[in-house]
């Protein structure tokens, strides 16, 4: 490497580089700048357009408000989701035998928080795109950005939910053009050759 750095003539330097590049490939790994700037894969958090501190503050406020709301509620029988429906969904799984009465009650509150958390994150995506209508793609984006929501990925197909910010996830769906196209032949290869009838036969004695 020192010799390369101190090579005076341009031609000799080029020659030396070309000559020594092969054997010196392994020991002298070129720095990444020489090949070109690498596009480092961004973390899921960095995909969010909203400032991190504001987003985290929203989340913290949300969970703090949930605890406060539960402590302040005087009538816990005022619920937003019907217990019987929750129980039916729980028992749709044939492996589930019995469900205690408290489980649907707990799920009613859990689903409230789940709906609000998912909606809040989806709305953040809609705001990033300057929209006022919450779309299915916003929900898909919120699901893809949150690890605990992985189990929901089947509900929102990736095609619908590919956010623009995720450049790595975008791919060209168009099919490549056919390279080997067989064209019909332009000539008829087979030829039929018949023997002419000799005229002498007709003039025989």
């Amino acid at each position, binding site marked *: 490497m020192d010799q390369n750095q101190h090579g005076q003539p341009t031609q000799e330097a080029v020659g030396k580089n070309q000559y020594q590049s092969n054997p010196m490939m392994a020991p002298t790994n070129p720095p990444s700048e020489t090949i070109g700037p690498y596009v480092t894969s961004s973390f899921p958090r960095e995909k969010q357009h909203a400032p991190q501190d504001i987003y985290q503050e929203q989340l913290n406020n*949300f*969970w703090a408000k949930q*605890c406060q*709301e*539960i*402590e302040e*509620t*005087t*009538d*816990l*029988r*005022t619920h*937003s*989701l*019907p*217990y*019987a*429906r*929750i129980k*039916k*969904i*729980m028992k*749709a*799984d044939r*492996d589930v*035998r019995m*469900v*205690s*009465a*408290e*489980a649907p*009650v*707990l*799920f009613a*509150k*859990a*689903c*409230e*928080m*789940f*709906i*609000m958390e*998912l*909606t809040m994150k*989806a*709305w953040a995506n809609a705001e990033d795109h300057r929209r*006022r*209508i*919450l*779309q*299915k793609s916003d*929900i*898909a984006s919120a*699901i893809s950005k949150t*690890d*605990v929501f992985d*189990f*929901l990925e089947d*509900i*929102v197909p990736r095609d619908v939910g590919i956010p623009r910010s995720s450049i790595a996830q975008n791919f060209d769906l168009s099919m490549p053009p056919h390279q080997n196209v067989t064209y019909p032949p332009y000539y008829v290869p087979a030829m039929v050759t018949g023997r002419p009838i000799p005229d002498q036969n007709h003039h025989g004695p």
Partner: protein
Amino acid sequence: MAGVREQDQYMPIANVIRIMRRILPAHAKISDDAKETIQECVSEYISFITAEANERCQREQRKTVTAEDVLWAMEKLGFDNYAHPLSLYLHRYRKTEGEPASARRASASASPSMQMHPRTHPHSHPPNYSHHGFGMFDFDPSSQGFYRDDASSSGSGGFVASFDPYANIKRDPL
């Protein structure tokens, strides 16, 4: 019953929309496919947590999925934020559950089923009840029977809570 009906697989969409609006700003609109997607996500969430809770039951050779199993499953599946508020909720529910049945019936009659939304709102401004009017939704809930289901579910839920055959289990803490 003869199989699970289509509408029984999801939470009532009116309830889902009402909860969504609690967290959204007033000028926000919700597309129809977003409403349906949230509906599907909620059912998937219940099934996902229930399956994990049920596995724990079977390992411990118990037959009844309890609230504790649900809480345990949520923490195991990464829903740590939910565990604390839900523990508070469960404790408070058990306190009120200890009230006499007559007081419970009086409380039930005091709060009709149409009063679905909780009294405490996350927004500081007073609640605008026109937002909860039926005209705001894309359909007439009474015609589609959603509120009838809610009313019957709430009523049956109340009675089931009173006459639940597993009442002895819920009063037996783990």
